[in-house]
């Protein structure tokens, strides 16, 4: 007579699995860390004199050691920065108190590109950069249409005191990015029918779109040297 194999009792399996499950539930966090990115300026060789800036080319934000904000020389709240940033990027072409906006026309860009490509073909390597620049401009126009280009000198500058709180600095940075992202988002919705933050950087087509939007509204934040007031 063959011995009957006894069945293994599996009812405690659930308990073991529960134990593991609870362990993982407790020790892990689900949320991803949220961050604000910034790129530090390159180290400058000693003795180099920084270029002079015209007041109209910068949006000046100053935070003092009591965390009060001075926006374009006027006392302001942190929340006012966003609107000013929008104005900094989008203003009438004739405005004299803001950096120059230059309309970029497709015909001009194509003509320039042809010209510079001709130079490169003749062996003038120095024009390769110009070719790149105009190729990028043409790509941008193809994606978002003709646009106004912000002058190279246009910058948002942040001047802090050494004793300014970190919180204040981040809030200022946040406001600038909010204003900037809002503009990019509006353009993205208008041209591509998709919100800016839904564009996926890993997708090649979307990456080109992001690049175009960033070309129209570039992030130009400059930190001035901290001051010390006692």
């Amino acid at each position, binding site marked *: 007579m063959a011995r009957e194999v006894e069945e293994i009792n*599996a*009812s405690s*399996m*659930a308990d073991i*699995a*529960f134990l*593991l*499950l609870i362990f*993982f*539930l407790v*020790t*892990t*966090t*689900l949320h*991803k*860390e*949220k*961050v*604000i*990115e*910034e*790129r*530090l*300026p*390159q*180290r400058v060789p000693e003795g180099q004199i920084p270029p002079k800036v015209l007041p109209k080319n910068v949006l000046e934000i100053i935070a003092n050691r009591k965390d009060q904000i001075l926006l374009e020389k006027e006392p302001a709240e942190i*929340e006012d920065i966003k609107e000013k940033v929008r104005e900094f990027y989008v203003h009438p072409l004739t405005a004299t108190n803001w950096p120059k906006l230059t309309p970029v026309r497709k015909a001009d860009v194509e003509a320039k590109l042809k010209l510079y490509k001709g130079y490169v073909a003749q062996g003038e390597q120095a024009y390769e950069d110009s070719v790149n620049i105009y190729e990028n401009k043409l790509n941008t126009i193809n994606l978002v249409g003709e646009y106004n280009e912000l002058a190279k000198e246009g910058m948002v500058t942040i001047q*802090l*005191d*050494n*004793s*300014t*709180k*970190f*919180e204040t*600095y*981040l*809030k200022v*940075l*946040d406001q600038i*990015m*909010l204003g*900037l*992202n809002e503009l990019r988002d509006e353009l993205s919705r208008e041209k591509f029918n998709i919100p800016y933050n839904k564009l996926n950087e890993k997708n090649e087509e979307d990456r080109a779109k992001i690049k175009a939007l960033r070309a129209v509204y570039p992030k130009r934040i400059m930190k001035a040297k*901290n001051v010390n007031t006692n």
Partner: protein
Amino acid sequence: MSKFSKNKKRTDPAISTASLPDIVFMLLFFFMVTSVSKEKESNLKIEKTTASAVTKLDKTKTIFTYFIGRPKNKKYGENYRVQLDDAIVPNMSAIGVYLKEKKEEYKDVWNSEVYNNFKVDNKAEIRMVKGVQDELRQQDALKVIYSVNEGSEK
């Protein structure tokens, strides 16, 4: 005489629990796969700032973490200190020394894949952050991220 006699007592069959472990295991695997293990512990008290224009941190990159805050343990004093990865640094130049070593190790991706994550207490003075960043700039480590809480506070 009804056709459907009620004499016979109906007993509910016991619900089989044999599939319970499977269900639980499924949940278990879900949590194991989707969860991220806890962030690096800090010896400093840090209350993060709230901001809204945020991006998600890509954990696949190499990240150096700098904590700036008041020590939890009194033996380190009351003043704001800097903690790099898991130790409180004695002075700013120690950061430079550390980065110099790391720069050799990661020299191909130093300014593309390496991020410097700042977790700073919101009441810390900017001079502390600036001090650390000056060391970073000396070593050409320029990619900086600030860890924040997401939200739209007023």
